[in-house]
């Protein structure tokens, strides 16, 4: 479904530098793919590039991003937008800032419908309540009219997932969606993503530096280092039998009970 070939993203402004340096990645439809790497390895830039969110005036992008066979980089911005709005959804790390503080939750969840479909207000509301139910937001009718500050962090992340999910996308990019949450809520969100993937067939590109989270959620994993994908394969294979030197070090760095007791 998604294939990235030799993607390079570099900044053209004064600071320069290559954020993504020849990354290649394959993702099948309905797959849960984890993308791991340390801070600054370029994983977020990769995701933003796929989502079309990097400023074109300040960056240079080469390579190919094939989404269902068509190269996203060759499309006109307008086409890209409508495609992305419908087929690609994205959720972010910080549930505090990823919702507009002055817009009611329900309205934000509906926004994509308003832009991409001709549905009337009544139908949009019904759909929004439906997805809110789906992501297990409590009391959808009441939550619909609330503002973000009235929700907890986990609920906000659920609201984000609902707004990304309302158009039934084929690909959901999740950029560290659990990093800012505490561990119990993390577990709930991961369960939710897993369920959405299994029931709705949405492919999930899950970006994280937290290997344990990736191991719990993803079927395949790609390891990113210094702008390149150094290794990819089935999660268990990569974890039990890492091939690349960097992956070995990364896995060795996971704290375990034995190491902790030392």
């Amino acid at each position, binding site marked *: 479904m998604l294939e990235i070939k030799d993607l390079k993203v570099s900044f053209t402004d004064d600071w320069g530098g290559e954020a993504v340096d020849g990354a290649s990645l394959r993702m099948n439809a309905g797959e849960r793919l984890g993308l791991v790497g340390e801070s600054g390895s370029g994983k977020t830039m990769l995701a933003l590039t796929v989502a079309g969110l990097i*400023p074109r005036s300040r960056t240079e992008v080469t390579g190919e991003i094939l989404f269902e066979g068509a190269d996203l980089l060759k499309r006109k911005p307008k086409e890209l*937008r409508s495609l992305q709005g419908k087929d690609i959804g994205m959720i972010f790390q910080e549930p505090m800032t990823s*919702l507009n503080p002055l*817009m009611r939750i329900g309205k934000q969840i509906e926004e994509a419908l308003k832009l991409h479909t001709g549905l009337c207000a009544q139908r949009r509301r019904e759909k929004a309540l439906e997805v809110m139910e789906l992501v297990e937001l409590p009391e959808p009718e009441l939550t619909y009219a609330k503002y973000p500050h009235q929700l907890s962090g986990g609920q906000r992340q659920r609201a*984000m997932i609902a707004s990304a999910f309302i158009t039934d996308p084929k690909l959901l990019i999740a950029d560290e969606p659990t990093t800012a949450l505490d561990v119990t809520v993390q577990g709930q969100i991961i369960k939710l993503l897993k369920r959405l993937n299994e029931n709705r067939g949405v492919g999930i590109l899950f970006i994280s530096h937290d290997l344990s989270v990736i191991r719990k959620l993803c079927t395949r994993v790609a390891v990113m280092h210094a702008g390149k994908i150094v290794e990819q394969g089935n999660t268990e294979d990569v974890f039990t039998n890492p091939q690349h030197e960097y992956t070995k070090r990364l896995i060795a760095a996971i704290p375990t009970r034995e190491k902790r007791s030392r």
Partner: protein
Amino acid sequence: MQGKRNYNLILGAAITAVMLSLILSGLIRTPHDPNKINAGNSLSAPSAQYLLGTDNFGRDILSRVIIGAGSTLYVAAATVAIGALAGMLIGGLTGYFGGWVDELFMRAGDIILAFPSILLALVLISLIGPGRNNIIIALGIMFIPSFARVVRGEYVRCRELDYVHSARIIGTGNMRIMFVHILPNAAPVILRAIAIGFNNAVLAEASMSYLGLGVQPPDASLGRMLSESQSYLFSAPWYALSAGIAIVLLILGFSLLGEGIGARDNA
């Protein structure tokens, strides 16, 4: 909000309410005809008939203060409206899109800000001529850069926030992002800028009419009253005081109101 009461807000609202009701009632009726000359009764002290006394032409000062304050308020409001609307548009576009357009407008703004604004307004007035509407145009242009700057800052801050990203990824158009998503979030800062800008506009209007470039005689204006009263500062101090205090109250009311609103938002 609990505990401490917001005295700024209360006092500001009270002063502004009194001034506004005086000005509004002045639109319908003033105690005396503000322009009626009564040579036999010039520079009379405050009395039951003329609450603030009369000026050198025997005109009722209270009526003239009310009309003059109304005219000042009108000029200030129109000036701020021009400055804020154009500033929001320019600041929004430059802050949101950035790039060379941003540079162009901001450097143009620097040029305008580099001159003392009164001086530049004087140049403009000498080009288009004195009068109330021309003052509004000249001052309005003077006020654009400062508003544009404030608004631009907010847009620069907001454009990289995640909720703007999420709006963009679901395919929201630039205009909708700018005005539906970002603008409400920039509103508190813009409102405060308007409160400050309003005070500056009141002062600027008063200075312009003090110099005789604003409202033309015989119509009343606070600045002109100040300049006329100068010659009678010792024989009729109530003349200068009335006009001066009216300006002070107008500004004080709005700046307290602005601070009160700011304090409430931060609480």
